[in-house]
């Protein structure tokens, strides 16, 4: 199974890190008070790695994820993804970059309720210069991959939580992104569905060699990762290998 992305040569190899975070600071101002969320944080993610970010609420793990995904810019420091300096891009550059390079998976799925599963998955492709038949092929492939080939015409409201999350995953991989970011993807699911979703993520990494960054509270979810990073008060505390399969 291949998801073809025309004109997008993969520059990253397995040995060079695909995500490089360098001395990143992130702080917000609330009145006169300055709140440090991330403090001089540096981290590399090699291509094809399944990385889990853990930490208590307010530790900055989601902020780090947002920076890497190009949703936010650091106050200081650099964020590289592939050969792009993401932290220096303008908002509209970021928007265009995200479409091609990042796949998002959310806790609450965030599917558009009025669109069918198929149309939800197709959404990011509409921004790319693809013919209708190419789009159809990619959407079908992505939905088959998550095991929803038979549910394409259903609206999100007609799908279970686990199924909705699979649509979310299909949408995340349909553009063949450089990096998939997942924010608590199992947080709203029952144990069985959560297992299935985690299996699917593991499969993405194993079969498609996708780089995945997963933010989670759940140790069981984190245990599927190659590596777990713990954040506390905006800094990395421990780094150890996960129980990746």
């Amino acid at each position: 199974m291949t998801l073809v992305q025309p004109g997008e040569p993969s520059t990253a190899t397995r040995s060079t890190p695909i995500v490089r975070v360098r001395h990143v600071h992130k702080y917000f101002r609330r009145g006169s008070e300055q709140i440090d969320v991330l403090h001089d944080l540096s981290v590399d993610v090699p291509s094809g790695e399944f990385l889990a970010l853990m930490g208590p609420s307010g530790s900055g793990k989601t902020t780090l994820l947002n920076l890497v995904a190009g949703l936010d810019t650091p106050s200081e420091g650099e964020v590289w993804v592939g050969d792009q300096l993401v932290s220096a891009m303008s908002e509209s550059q970021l928007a265009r970059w995200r479409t091609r390079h990042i796949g998002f998976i959310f806790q609450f799925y965030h599917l558009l309720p009025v669109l069918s599963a198929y149309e939800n998955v197709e959404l990011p492709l509409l921004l790319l210069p693809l013919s209708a038949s190419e789009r159809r092929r990619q959407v079908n492939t992505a939905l088959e991959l998550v095991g929803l080939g038979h549910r394409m015409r259903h609206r999100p409201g007609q799908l279970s939580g686990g199924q909705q999350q699979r649509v979310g995953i299909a949408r995340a991989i349909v553009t063949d992104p450089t990096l998939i970011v997942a924010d608590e993807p199992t947080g709203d699911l029952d144990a069985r569905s959560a297992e299935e979703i985690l299996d699917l993520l593991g499969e993405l990494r194993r079969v498609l060699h996708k780089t995945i960054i997963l933010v989670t509270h759940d140790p069981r979810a984190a245990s599927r990762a190659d590596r777990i990073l713990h954040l506390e008060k905006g800094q990395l505390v421990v780094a150890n290998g996960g129980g990746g399969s």
Partner: protein
Amino acid sequence: MFDVWNQLAFWSVVVLLLAAVSRVPIGYNLRNLTVRWRTTMMTAAAFTLVIALLVVMTAFVNGMNRLTDSSGRPDNVLVLSDGAPDEAISTLNLGDLPQIENLPLVERRGGRPMASRETFIIVNQAVETTRRDRPKRRFLQLRGIEDPLRSAYVHDQGLLPGGAWFSPAGAVELPPDGERARPVVAIQCVVGEGVARELGRDRDAAQLASARNPKRLDVGDTFTMGNRTWLITGILDSASTTFGSEIWAKRSLVAAIFGKNVYTTLVVRCPSPQAAVEMKDFLANYRNVAVSAQVETDYYKSLSETSQQFAWAIGFVVVIMSVGGVFGVMNTMYAAISQRIKDIGVLRLLGYSRLQILASFMLESLGIAIIGGALGCFIGSLADGWTATSVVSSNAGAGKTVVLRLVVDANTLALGAVLTMIMGAVGGLLPSLNAMRLKALEALR
């Protein structure tokens, strides 16, 4: 400056551009509109009302303009007494008439000048009807002419099939019948379609049941005016001219019955429109007669002052009413956007640009507008062909009561389309800008 077709083209291009810019599938907008169909319908209904009203009111003005535009001939000169702005108060000197008729600029046929001497009277008619919805009195416009065929030639005026011009005597004795115990002398006349329709409405149910033509009086019908019985011998083929609101009869009889034994109007035919202009200029400086002359078409054009005023009034009312449509769609769009903040967040995350979000919501607002406006145009266009009474007049004091037909033409519908799109765009802009400004992360929080 304001060309409705340019405007329509402009707004169509705007819609197409928005559709091209927004990559959000149009089905997304359409489905959201159908999911909240009640809100969509109420919002669109406000557009329908405004546009339907605009179309009907514009059709009314169109009808007035069509009358004043198509009445009169450019090669006719209308002669009134000096200083008289209108036929009703004009009094020509008898001695002036032959002097004008025999001028070389006047067309001659069979040795006779093609001129129509006329007495125009506005008659106050007491309406004799048992129907309670009819007025008690009305004004009828009566034109006394001397030689029907010559006047018909000058005015280029024919009769509908089945009619005839009145006899040289201008009157005929009617034998007794169900309504008349004794024979009466009836004045023969030809009437415009508009008057025939208006008079026909006075009939009660019994009369209508036995009527020759239930829609209007027809050849052979009689009516009462000025204590006399009038017999219709023909219906003027007067589609969309002011003659449709007139009654023509023998001048000498008319003058005697209504005590107005003067000529009010002289209309002369010239060989060409150019000759008519020369004739008008000549009469302006001709010392021998005291008249004011104008090319007939110019006279009727001057009667469009009223429709100008109406057009302004309509513009005023429509602008105010469209505020209703604009604010209505604004409310709807603000609510739509606040319900779909999460959708917007997702789209932004997936890489949709601000402009694409703006375009998508603008399209949705324009979609409501177009649905409502199209329905409004349709409903408004049902008014096409309705007849209505109105007054056309000029600032100078000339005026006529006319029966007109409402005209919904392509221009009117285009105007409706333009207004609906402007309303949709204006009403959608602020909410769409709000949607555009949403930050992805904040929207998903």
